[in-house]
């Protein structure tokens, strides 16, 4: 079985998802389930922390594409943080920085959320 885990925690009132391991075609649906349940509960200010994510495949990126509009339509956003270089390269390669805020760390993401809401 492939190693992939999602930990959900709260930071300053924002939903933080810590991804760990490999996010690929096989494990993408786990992330989908978590995002869906957050959206259903109207929890739309989401920070995804990639610190312990070793690998991401297109299907993993696709989950973000599929739910970003849903999240934004209820007034929230998905902000991405702490990517290692390999993971960031994949996001960059496919053009994601134009659509998503990507930060070095959670603190910046929180600051951006607070800024946005002002």
């Amino acid at each position: 079985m492939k190693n992939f885990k999602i930990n959900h925690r709260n930071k300053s009132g924002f939903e933080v998802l810590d991804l760990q391991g490999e996010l690929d075609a096989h494990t993408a649906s786990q992330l989908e389930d978590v995002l869906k349940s957050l959206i259903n509960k109207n929890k739309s200010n989401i920070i995804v922390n990639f610190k312990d994510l070793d690998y991401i495949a297109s299907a993993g990126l696709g989950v973000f594409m599929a739910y970003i509009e849903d999240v934004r339509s209820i007034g929230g956003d998905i902000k991405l943080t702490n990517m290692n270089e390999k993971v960031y390269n994949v996001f960059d390669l496919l053009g994601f920085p134009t659509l998503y805020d990507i930060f070095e760390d959670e603190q910046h993401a929180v600051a951006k959320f607070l800024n946005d809401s002002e």
Partner: protein
Amino acid sequence: MNIPNGNRDFQSSFELKTVLETSRMLVESRDTSFILNNLLLILMGRLLVTKAAIFIYDPVADKYTLKKSKGYQGYSEEKEYQILSNDEQKKLAYFPVSDAQNVFPDVLHDEENSFYFNLRTSNNHHGFLLLGPKANKKPYEPHEIDFVEGLTIISTAALVNSQLFNELNKTYRNLDRRIHELNTLFDLSKEFNLLVDREKISRIFKFALLGQLFIRKFFLIYKNQDNISLLASSGLTSDPDNSHVEHIFSVPNQEVFLIDDEFKQQNPWVEENEIIALIGISIQNEKVAVIGVGERVNKIPFSENDFNFLKSLANLAAISIQKTYFLEERIDKERMEEELSIAKSIQQGLLPDPIPPVPGAELAAKTISSREVGGDYFDVARSPDGNTIFAIADVTGKGVPAALLMANMQSMLHLLLPVDISFAEATERVNNIIFKNTPSDKFITFFWAKYLSDHKILRYVNAGHNPPLLLRHDKAEFEELDKGGLLLGALETIAPYEQTDIQLNPNDLLVCYTDGVDEAMHPIDQKEFGTERLKESILKNRDKTCEEILDGIVQDVNAFSSNQLTDDLTLLVLKACE
């Protein structure tokens, strides 16, 4: 010029320093725009020039494009211009604007002190630097011209470097993208192989496409047998209705179809959902799926490579989806076969086993189903008066419907057996019940008889069944037992059924059969086995036991049809004893 020598030396070293500093900075820069801008600003600052511009040469189109312009009115950056009046000018280090082919209005009034400087490397011409007059209107000094030339050469080298670097970088990124696409394909083909869940395959396919192509709007329509349905979608305002789905599936003939205005008019759903391209996927020349995609989120148009990737991925998904349907069909078929085999054993339980002995006669009977279950029926049973009743019947049609009716028939006969009514009357009741219980296109041909063993009398009613053949022990001709009435289930009984008594003598032989015997087909000639061949088969074996006569007929029919029976086949053979 009356600049003192010392001052001039100072100025030269100052200029040299500028050139050196600039060159160091430029060599490290990979930003084309910065390099060009820097060249203009240094020159304008050092020489107090208020107008300057840079044109870059495109050797393929033989055109100049204005890249940077400062101080000139009426020029547009990124616009193309004609500059040269002859090719020789490409080799000059510089020449006055008045020698150029096209003198622009804003250059005109000071063209005397304006120059084109060649942006060149040792082999190639890369464009021109257009330098306007100095602010103090004085002509350029030779050392100033040298300074411009030197700075131009260094800047050009840096420009070429940066262009090369950008080109390499682009190639590298493209390569990276291809590798990533291949990885995605590889990943998904592995994943799809493990999956038998259609919904899951469609979803993974969706996510991979959304991520790799950077799109939000997507749908997958799949055709299975005659049913076209939406298997996956993302970002749609509503699901398409059936007519839209069918239209989408029917229109694009080519693999990639870019939605045009005509299509949008025909299919408002596609327009509403901002779908821009449809991609048809075929397996073995049969179209099985259509994928629709919206534009890329960053508006960059799809390249041929993108579509190729999409097609490869879609092919993988389509094959895996097809596999899931095949698997379901196989499971359904296996379940059906299992049920049929249970039905067959139930049906076989309805036939007499073992066949009870018949006082005063010898009897053999057998039914062979062409399918798992069939509509042929025979029965042999003792009646309450101690005599034997036997029956043979054929239900129209085959398979499960025929078998159901046959089971119905069997239960009716056994219910009527102990009832004290005449044979003709019993037939009438059976007919009325079957007529009521069955659709109008279902009939049963039916023959039954009671053998009164004490007197060797055969009392029979034939309701539309193939007349059983009676072969008297001392004759070579057959009699046909065809008296009775209409086949069962066609009409409510109007005229009563007629029962007939026949006196049998020892070794008189009766052969009852269903149409599986006489209508057995020769596989090549397309001829039927027929009653003549049946009679020959009986005559050949008439002295043998009933069992052997029956087997003889089955063998002859099998040989005739090369063992390819298309209908149920039933035989019942009775021979009167001493």
